[in-house]
């Protein structure tokens, strides 16, 4: 059944009944706890990404690798990051693969990525959180393109670290990114509060209260000051 499903991937266009490839998803579940079988399945899936199977087939493979992918799948997925059609589904897997290689692949793809794809990659780095360096996100924050800058801000907010705060503090704010930069600051303050760093959080809230771009931001800062007192 599994062999037939992999065979079906070769012609898996939009419109083909998904039942044809269901054994792949069944194998994802069935191989849990069997590292040899899981490794073999992952290798087969990653290999498909290096072929010219239809887009819908590669989408399917990325969905499976989201659950079972390891560092072994990262090179095949990383090759798709600059592909306008497949970048999102590659991130679908890379965003959740808990191997440092996945974060490195995302970071490495930023600079040469076209704008829209770059925003997606930055967003995925923010969603990963823990193992992501601040520097590439800070660079995005300082990008002249306001939408890339917005993406960098939100990703830094998701990180919520002291270094993220430092980067956000030096952001050039404009009409397009101001709400995101402010929200990112507030997210960082919340992260600090959650870690018991009330005084550090209060500094951020006070800054937002003083210079927040909107009434809404000042309300949030006011709430935060109360929470951090």
């Amino acid at each position, binding site marked *: 059944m599994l062999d037939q499903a992999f065979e079906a991937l070769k012609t*898996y266009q*939009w*419109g*083909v*009944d*998904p039942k044809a490839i269901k054994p792949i998803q069944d194998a994802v*579940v069935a191989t*849990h706890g069997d590292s040899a079988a899981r490794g073999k399945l992952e290798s087969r899936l990653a290999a498909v990404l290096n072929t010219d199977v239809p887009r*819908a087939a590669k*989408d*399917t493979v990325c*969905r499976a690798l*989201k*659950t*079972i992918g390891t560092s072994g799948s990262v090179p095949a997925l990383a090759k798709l990051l600059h592909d306008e*059609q497949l*970048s*999102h589904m590659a*991130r*679908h897997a890379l*965003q*959740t*693969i*808990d191997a440092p290689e996945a974060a490195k692949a995302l970071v490495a793809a930023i600079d040469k990525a076209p704008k*829209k*794809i770059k*925003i*997606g990659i*930055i*967003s*995925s780095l*923010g*969603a*990963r*959180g*823990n193992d992501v360096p601040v520097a590439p996100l800070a660079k995005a924050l300082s990008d002249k393109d306001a*939408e890339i800058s917005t*993406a960098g801000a*939100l*990703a830094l907010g*998701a*990180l*919520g670290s002291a270094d993220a705060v430092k980067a956000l503090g030096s952001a050039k704010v404009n009409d397009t990114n101001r*709400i995101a930069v402010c*929200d990112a600051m507030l*997210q960082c303050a*919340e*992260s600090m*509060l*959650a870690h018991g760093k009330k005084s550090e959080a209060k500094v951020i809230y006070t800054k937002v209260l003083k210079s927040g771009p*909107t*009434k*809404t931001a000042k*309300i*949030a800062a*006011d*709430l*935060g000051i*109360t*929470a951090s007192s």
Partner: protein
Amino acid sequence: MKTTRRKFLSTTGTAAAALGFPAIIPSSALGNADRPAPSNRIVMGGIGIGNMGRGDHGAFLGKKDVQYVAICDVRKGAMNQGKAKTDAKYGNKDCKAHDDYREILSRDDIDAVHIATPDHWHAQMIIEACRHGKDVFCQKPESLTLGEGSLMVETARRYGRVVSGGSQRVLQDYKSTALRCWNGSYGKISSINVNVGPMSQPCNLPQENLPGDMNWEMWLGPAPWAPYNSKRCSGSFSTSGNSWRSYIDYSGGGMTDWGAHHFGGATFTVDVRDLQPQEAVLGEIDGKKFVSLKYPNGMEITHNKPGVGHFHVGRDNVQREGKEFPKYAGSGGITGDFIDCVKTRGRPFRDIEYAINTMAVPHLATIAYKLNRSLKWDAAKQEFIGDAEANRLRNRARREPWQI
């Protein structure tokens, strides 16, 4: 993967209530007895005006203390109908029609929005609306994934926004049962079973010609790209392949669609709306799988447990004491509740945190079914304990350029 800041949320939630956050309605402007003055009305816009959105539009448009000024839909037909309906109500041409919700959120004159898009848009729109200072009424199911649920709650609390979910059935359909449970008529409830489904399925429908009045990129939004197909985006209530409610990228299927009502009724009836389950235990009876969601206070909600009725009732007839039975604020059902809370900065009956706690039930059960194993859930950290694969299923990457 990062965790959430829910510990903080409990703090800010309290702080927000204690502060009695500023009502956005100017109190200086007094209206007449029949209808508040324009300056004292809630200025609203609607996003997603087909099907459920049409009903919500009508409900809010009919309220004397609402001034409806903007419509957004990615289908021009629905958008134009919504504008025409609004303009006819007021006898003018003032309602603005948009096919990009961000134009509504960026308007400073709008206080609140109602959202009735497919589920894959809910988190994106709620979070952005809160950042822009809007209060939000959003149709159920409020979340598509576990991860976006906690982000929605965090953002609503961060900005002190009133965010209400949209299951009118929780109080409408289950009130009498819940009341009997709350007053002890059934004795001590130990377990409640919910029969609902099915789960959503992968979608690989073929490409069809795109209708001229449809903005397909905006319909898809943060969901994976797929070719247009009328069944893929139909707003019908089918969960068996004829609507977006059938498919994984846009919905949890009947499990979350009707589940938002039924699990909402269950969590309300047994009074666990403040909690999330700590375990999703996969069981099997006579070859039929079911999931038992176990709460830290000992309560259990089962899903599709074969051979049982809807309630397990203990023998000890314990009276609940000192807790008022919840009801809608204001008048006019759940939409009236929302409007009243916007004015008073109160907590709606289906406050976003209650809604997200409710939606955690079908989301947890779905992941247990999909992985075919029992799971332990740390609600404070919003992560599965000792199951990295399950943790990967909490979130989905958003299609560029969408991000929250």
